[in-house]
């Protein structure tokens, strides 16, 4: 049977991916360049019996998502840099209270209001360390409209599996770019739901570590009544200042991602096997990098691309391996040097490292990358 195809904008693909994943709640606030995610869901969610609400501000949008998620809903919000800055307060709440949800950040220039209609990748570090305190982070960075669809589905799966907020990083270019995509049939992509409590309501503890690093989450409104707080808490969900309990809980929440890197990480490698130079790029800029690699290969240069699809946790091990194989790594990114800091940290000087930064509202072109490769190698 012929595949169902559609011509979709990245932001639209994101919204349809969310629906495919079973999203039944969206709380949002208008902001360029992410608004189309909200517009599609305002139209589509009520058709499925789902709920769309436009809240009074970005913080409230995030709050509504967490409230809905606690009742068992798969919940989504979408915003852009300045809006994500506002949401950080409650992204931290989602981390400590371990509430599954998905946050789309269609990145634009900054700081502050910056360049609302210009593309950017300057929230790479915000996606990791935007909220205060120690916490784990998962963020995915798709490149094409097809991948925006499937990675949004995977973001929901990761959120439900690891009981935490997961960010989808787009940018103004792939958010607004239109491409032909094949719409997967129901059942074609894996859909994961949160683990139900395997114990009776009387025995249930919302942060019970005896079930492993991801304790099962019951739903508000079911027979499992429980307490949720943003304070450091013990396994029963109630606040504690006992050093041993606070330490154990904090470490567990970071370990649940660190110990499952192999299941969370996802990368693409393009012509890296014999490469002497590897370009590390994400999202829109990986498309320029791929083009540059193809052209440089035609010229006989041994160049490849490594593309983190899961940006956080950062693919430390594979990049360290590549650093031992190549002469140089080049990191083009639409900011003035964020992802390169992570690469620098993990390669420990094993190869040369060069960055290409751009913040003028234009993407980094294949020619810029080709020129850099020729300059350094």
């Amino acid at each position, binding site marked *: 049977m012929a595949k169902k195809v559609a011509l979709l904008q990245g932001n639209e693909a994101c919204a349809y991916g969310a629906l495919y994943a079973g999203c039944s709640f969206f709380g949002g606030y208008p902001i360029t360049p992410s608004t189309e995610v909200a517009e599609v869901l305002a139209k589509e969610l009520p058709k499925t019996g789902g*709920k769309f609400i436009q809240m009074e501000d970005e913080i409230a949008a995030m*709050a509504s998502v967490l409230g809905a998620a606690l009742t068992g809903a798969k919940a989504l919000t979408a915003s852009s840099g300045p809006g994500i800055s506002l949401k950080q307060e409650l992204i931290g709440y989602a981390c400590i209270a371990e509430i599954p949800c998905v946050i789309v950040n269609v990145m634009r220039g900054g700081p502050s209001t910056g360049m609302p209609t210009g593309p950017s990748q300057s929230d790479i570090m915000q996606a990791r360390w935007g909220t205060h305190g120690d916490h784990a982070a998962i963020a995915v960075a798709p490149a094409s409209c097809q991948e925006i669809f499937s990675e949004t589905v995977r973001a929901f799966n990761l959120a439900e599996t690891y009981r935490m907020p997961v960010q989808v990083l787009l940018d103004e270019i792939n958010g607004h770019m239109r491409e032909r995509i094949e719409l997967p049939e129901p059942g074609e992509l894996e859909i994961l739901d949160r683990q139900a409590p395997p114990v009776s309501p009387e025995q249930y503890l919302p942060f019970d570590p005896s079930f492993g690093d991801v304790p099962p989450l019951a739903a508000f409104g079911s027979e499992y009544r429980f307490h*949720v707080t943003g304070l450091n808490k013990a396994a029963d969900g109630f*606040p504690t200042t006992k050093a041993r309990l606070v330490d154990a809980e904090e470490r567990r929440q970071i370990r649940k991602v660190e110990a499952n890197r192999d299941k969370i990480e996802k990368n693409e490698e393009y012509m890296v096997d014999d490469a002497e130079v590897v370009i590390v790029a994400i999202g829109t800029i990986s498309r320029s990098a791929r083009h540059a690699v193809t052209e440089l290969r035609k010229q006989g240069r041994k160049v490849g691309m490594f593309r983190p699809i899961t940006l956080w946790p950062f693919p430390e091990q594979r990049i360290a391996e590549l650093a031992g194989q190549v002469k140089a790594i080049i990191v083009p990114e639409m900011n003035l040097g964020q992802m390169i800091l992570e690469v620098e940290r993990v390669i420990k000087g094993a190869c040369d490292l060069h960055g290409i930064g751009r913040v003028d509202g234009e993407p980094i072109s294949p020619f810029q990358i080709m020129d850099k490769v020729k300059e350094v190698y």
Partner: protein
Amino acid sequence: MAFDYDKYLRPGKLPHIWCPGCGHGIVLKGLLRAIDACELEKNRTAIVSGIGCASRLPGYVDFNTLHTAHGRAAAFATGIKMAQPDMNVLVVGGDGDGVAIGGNHFIHACRRNIDMTYVLMNNFIYGMTGGQFSPCTPTGDKASTTPYGNPDPTFDISKLAIGAGATFVARTTAYHATQIDKLIAEGIRHKGMAIIEVLDDCPTTYGRRNKFRSVVDMMKRFKELAVPVAKAATMSKEELDGKIVTGILHREERPEYCEQYAEVIKRAQNL
């Protein structure tokens, strides 16, 4: 027969954090009597709060309880109610939490007329952080951050709620203990946004800085200043100056938000 509070209190969670003489315990008991009178099912009831002394209330009671971030209770509660319109959703908190940092969420929850009951304990001060002035601290009063007297004008929370669109607004005080549960119960039964403002006492951080020699003095003041809404209707503006009008201040019927959204779903599905 004495009311059995224990059936709603979580075992092992008392004593509470509130100071001797604080009125929050009076409000907690009133809330539980109201919930009992309305026969709310524990599993289908969520109690949501923000940050502050009053916001610690949910931890003590056996419902689905959510102690959120400072000021955000009404917005979290909106998400719960939208996702599960059949659940009973209550919000509790203080004045700084509700109408300073949470002011935007407060007025928009009122505007939507979403069906929840918000019990706001107004003790005129940020108690948990040690007594800084709030938007409800009377002008001229002392707080740790107004050592020369408070220069700020104050919010009238009930008027704010009425202006913003809440369809049930009532006010009482911690002195009027038997009125608290009646007003909260009326609010729970009301379809739409119900605000119950309870003027409360904080002897520790407000009273002692403002020449109240004892908790009894603070309670006496509530008793002396309170004017029932029916009597207030017969008094002049000058006579009401400085008084606390108590009772149901406002009640109207207006479409409720979740019901309105149910209509949206119907329209979307009939396309």
